[in-house]
């Protein structure tokens, strides 16, 4: 194994890892937004919104994220959507992650005992007051772990945007293989950096989960 080479290219991989982190953060934020909207739609009192929410989830969970990215990035210009690779990556992955998060958020909300809403409504709280003050604070605590799983998947999914030539970790590894012919070392290095990012994220999620639990 060529450690010297790995040490030499390491700084460039760090730059690429920074791009992966930016992608992950933006994707997570967009995913959370879409997930919140999706879950609200799925739990709406209006049948049309429920249908749209369900359709969103089944379309984006029912097709490969790579195809979604390709349609957005390569097919987009055909219908007037011009995005650079990074933008397409964030938007494509964010909407995809949002479909999974929709189910996570919805799952946490519906798992709260219906007696909780009843008790709140009995006291005179409106539907929205009950949701905001009684259901969501409890559901949010239940969401931390499963959203952590979504986050883990999403970080790994950022590797897909290499296919639309965003210069992140995976793409960078491929590029250095072209000049060094050392795929083992290059992918190992990329994998190592992914692992560090994911490990740190996992620790943060565990910490947050502990912090929000009621003792």
């Amino acid at each position, binding site marked *: 194994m060529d450690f010297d080479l790995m040490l030499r290219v390491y700084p460039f991989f760090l730059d690429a890892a920074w791009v992966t982190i930016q992608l992950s953060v933006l994707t997570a934020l967009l995913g959370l937004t879409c997930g919140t909207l999706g879950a609200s739609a799925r739990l709406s009192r209006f049948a049309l919104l429920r249908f749209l929410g369900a359709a969103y989830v089944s379309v984006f969970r029912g097709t490969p994220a790579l195809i979604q990215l390709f349609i957005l990035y390569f097919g987009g210009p055909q219908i007037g959507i011009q995005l650079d690779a990074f933008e397409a990556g964030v938007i494509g992955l964010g909407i995809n992650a949002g479909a999974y998060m929709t189910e996570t958020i919805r799952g946490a909300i519906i798992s709260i*005992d219906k007696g909780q809403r009843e*008790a*709140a409504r*009995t*006291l005179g709280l409106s539907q929205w007051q009950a949701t905001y*003050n*009684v259901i969501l*604070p409890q559901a949010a605590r239940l969401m931390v772990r499963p959203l952590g799983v979504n986050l883990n998947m999403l970080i790994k999914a950022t590797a897909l945007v290499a296919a639309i030539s965003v210069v992140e970790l995976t793409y960078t590894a491929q590029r250095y293989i072209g000049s060094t012919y050392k795929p083992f070392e290059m992918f190992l290095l990329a994998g190592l950096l992914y692992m560090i990012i994911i490990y740190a994220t996992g620790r943060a999620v565990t910490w947050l989960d502990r912090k929000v639990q009621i003792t």
Partner: protein
Amino acid sequence: MTDQSHFVEIRHAQKSYGTLEVLKDISLNVERGQIVAIIGPSGSGKSTLLRAVNDLDSLTGGEVWLDGVQVNKDLPHRQYEKHINAMRQDIGMVFQHFNLFPHLTARENVVMAPKMLKGLSKEDANKLAEEQLEKVGMLDRIDYYPSRLSGGQKQRVAIARALAMKPKLMLFDEATSALDPELVDEVNMVMKKLAEEHMTMIIVTHEMDFAASVCDRVLFMDQGVVVEEGPPEIVFKNPTKDRTREFLRKHLAGAA
């Protein structure tokens, strides 16, 4: 115009789930300060009737009135929500499974609704919490989360939470059924205290002795109808209907 003469008035209550008729034309009047107990076998419609009073379960027919105002008014959705939220502030309810908010302390459970709906200051809210928790003997656990309370303690906090809205009427749906036997008394004591203060109450219960000792009137329900109704001395000691007798024989067998 309808003549409104009783404090609580249930008129021809009817409730169906699909083809299953759960309440079949039930009428019931409760006067201010009266305590009515509803007894009957499981599945007879007791909870459904009680939950119709604050429209937690909507009737498919009939009317519910409280203090001269119809609870289940026929209004457009938004207006109805406003109306029912206001009505419910006057109707306290206590559930079999407490339904305390687990993310809030006893204090916060008690003051959440009054703070939100009546705009109490922090000071007044604290005073209210202390007052209500004192009343149910839970002042020493005021900053405990529900997870650290026993069933009886949880139910007492739940009663304090309902009382904090200063309701005109209290509904109890088997408030002691989920409790270990040794914890039943502490909750019954609180309910007795409310009775002494002349709180108007409708109590669904399986505890015949308790019902007999606090209530002014007993309603025996079976299969969605009121089979027998009267003062506890009559219904418990000298029931006129066979079905009542049979039910009481089963339920008093252990207690006798």
